[in-house]
């Protein structure tokens, strides 16, 4: 979908004054399939020549059919995969993981089970060189408060529900103040009610200037994308970008928002054509 939607032009204008945080240029990711019986051995070309920019404070929601390479794209940005092309953060090329890009995985067993909630959050901060105990406590308390988990400092992850674990994972990411937070369907495994609550919280946090976040958020859910994203991208098989535009629906988005139905239908069509 190359023609600009009604919201695109306006969106690009007011986003253009923000600096580019992430620049993906000519990204190509080919998985080796020589070990897979039946494959042609030419490699599974998951992403071919993808270019993408994410600006400061963008909340980019990526939609796409299963298997189109969304997770792969995020893992390349995170530095967890080898790839061809260039990925730059604030102009500096990155090929390996680092605390400037923090990943929130889909699997909610991503916290270290041997550390308490508080220590899980503080660990990355310690590794970044913060030694002062008071400072560490202040930072982790603040992050926990933001995700509504004050009082759970001393809990071990196995004592939390799935939704709470994802909140801690988000708090951990926030506390590190990365340039960009990479979220791969973080709410996909949660029930509808918890998912809704967490969406609202994430929306609030992402709009909070104190946290000053830039987020890429993968989802299968069109509604989630429209509610959360400031920008929306639809990926096709082969990693082609079908849609990449400013979210035209004004916040706060509800199904009753003006233009919601039409936009939902447009994304739905783009997804299913893809």
């Amino acid at each position, binding site marked *: 979908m190359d023609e600009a939607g009604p919201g695109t032009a306006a969106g690009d204008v007011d986003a253009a004054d923000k600096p580019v945080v992430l620049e993906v240029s000519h990204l190509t990711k080919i998985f080796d399939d020589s070990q897979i019986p039946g494959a042609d051995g030419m490699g599974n070309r998951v992403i071919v020549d993808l270019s993408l920019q994410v600006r400061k404070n963008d909340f980019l929601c990526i939609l796409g059919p299963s298997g189109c390479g969304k997770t792969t794209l995020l893992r390349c940005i*995170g*530095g967890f995969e080898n790839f061809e092309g260039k990925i730059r953060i604030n102009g500096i090329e990155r090929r390996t*993981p680092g605390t400037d890009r923090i990943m929130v*995985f889909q699997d909610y*067993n991503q916290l*270290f089970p041997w550390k308490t909630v508080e220590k899980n959050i503080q660990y990355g901060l310690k590794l970044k060189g913060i030694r002062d105990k008071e400072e560490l406590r202040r930072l982790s308390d603040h992050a926990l408060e933001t995700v509504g988990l004050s009082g759970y400092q001393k809990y071990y992850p*196995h004592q939390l529900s799935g939704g709470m674990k994802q909140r801690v994972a988000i708090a951990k990411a926030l506390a590190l103040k990365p340039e960009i937070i990479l979220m791969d369907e973080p709410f996909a495994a949660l029930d509808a009610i918890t998912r809704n609550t967490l969406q609202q919280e994430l929306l609030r946090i992402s709009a909070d200037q104190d946290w000053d976040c830039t987020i890429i958020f993968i989802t299968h859910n069109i509604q989630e994308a429209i509610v959360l994203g400031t920008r929306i991208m639809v990926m096709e098989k082969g990693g082609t970008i079908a849609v990449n535009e400013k979210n035209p629906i004004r916040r706060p988005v509800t199904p009753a928002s003006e233009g919601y139905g039409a936009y939902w239908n447009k994304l739905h069509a783009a997804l299913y054509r893809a």
Partner: protein
Amino acid sequence: MKKSFRESKSCDILVKVLFLVLVAIIWEITAKAHVFGERSEIVFPTIEAIGAAFVRNFTKGYAGTGLALYTLNSMNLLLRGLLIGIGLAFAFSGLSMISRTFSNVYNLCVTIFDLLPGVALLPVVIVIFGVKPGVIVFLVVHSVIWPMSRSVLDGFKAAPKIYVEAGKNLGLNGPGLLFGVYVPAAAAYIVSGLKVGWARAWRGLIAAEMVFGIASCPGIGLYINQMRTNMKNAEMYATLIVIIIIGLVVQYGILNPIEKMTVRRWGMVSAA
């Protein structure tokens, strides 16, 4: 809901205690009935006799040396061997994570040497190094290092990819990643390795002392042998009880608390 007594912990303990009492009663009846005629007093000394021998072991001992000293000697060698063995197991397993070549060679060594009972190796070691307490330490190291390495290596291999990636995301690399993620992630395996390693080391130690008891450094194994040659069977049984008690103390006083403080506390599934 209140659990019935049959399902309670106290019931479990009661069953175990009752079983031990039953065994003791049967033993005592067998002893008193002189089932083995002439030799009954030797084969089946009464519980009173064993109890008295237990005390005698520590007060009089053998040739002026009490069993406490023998035990201390054994524990000293054991502890040294365990520390060296566990340390080496971690060091080599860690190196295996860094170098593929080393990993191949070390895995082969673990497979080969794990099959070799320490006592079988002992004559060779003695031929080379002579009869010294160090030989027993060597044997303890041998008993603990291979099962421990197997567990640690398996634990590293089973470390969930998501923890490793989360660690890398925080900037961990090399040794930092090894100690920050792989080691705690392998906790369940390490604990089970400790249990197996300890049991092997303890048995290996006693066996080595019995076969090659060293008079210059007398241990529990040697003591049992001395009791046997002196036909002091009650003392012999009493020493077996000492060996069991030490095993229980280590199991319940050291290993179980370690497990409770790590794997259980963190809600990690225990490794088989």
